[in-house]
């Protein structure tokens, strides 16, 4: 076994994405829910890079670059919201967050 087909990377990406979805559904803490979104984004990035390798084009890498930038922006705003939530409510449990205004 000396060469790795692209499909291995794609399967790994799919598995990671699936685990990310499971984490998103199962986790109860706002922060960990947020982290599972990052996990899914990472899985997608892996697929992008694998596709870029399969086609020998850098476009896939450019997309990954954009995904990473958007993830950074999302984390900045999202975590600011999480900090506000933590200051204004006693629990970080997503199930307790059932009102838009309080």
């Amino acid at each position, binding site marked *: 076994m000396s060469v790795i087909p*692209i*499909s291995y990377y794609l399967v790994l990406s799919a598995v990671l994405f699936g685990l990310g979805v499971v984490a998103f559904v199962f986790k109860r803490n706002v922060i960990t829910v947020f*982290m599972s979104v990052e996990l899914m984004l990472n899985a997608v990035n892996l697929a992008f890079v694998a596709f870029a390798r*399969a086609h020998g084009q*850098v476009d896939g890498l450019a997309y990954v670059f954009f995904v990473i*930038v958007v993830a950074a922006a999302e984390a900045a705003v999202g975590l600011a919201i999480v900090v506000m939530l933590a200051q204004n409510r006693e629990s*970080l449990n997503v199930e307790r967050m059932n009102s838009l205004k309080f």
Partner: protein
Amino acid sequence: MIFPAILFFVCALLAIVGAVMVILAREPIHSALALILVMMSLAVLYLLLGAEFIAAVQILVYAGAIMILFVTVIMVINAGVEERTDFSKIAKFAGLPLGFFLLLETAHWLYHSAIGAAIANGPGAHAEAFSTRELSTELFRRYLLPFEATSILILIAVLGALVLARKDE
């Protein structure tokens, strides 16, 4: 060379173990560490695929900036052990098998797709690494508009975070 194959399987295993740990860990900070493990192993996989720049950016931005933000926030708000809640019966009995089936089918489809048959080996094997120069040229020519849009997006995100963090008068 058998090293790429070994490296691939070790990193793939680490990534999956890390992702499972994200789900199983009760402490948010353990989840964060497990996610960092996933990101680092993905960075190694990017190196295997010949995408050096993306691997460096992955470590620099994801592991070095975003996750540090997560860890800091967890420390600041002192997020304790997660509460356990009962989820619905339907989710328990139908959701899990269905999700597993979806995963299996996706994997099966990807494995047998035409694109999946292509061979991926990074630098050291027959394939050349992507050149960072080529990627940057592409970014600043073809993707100039999206690139500028992301800079505005970042600016808006910074402003948004500032507005949220501002003390009420």
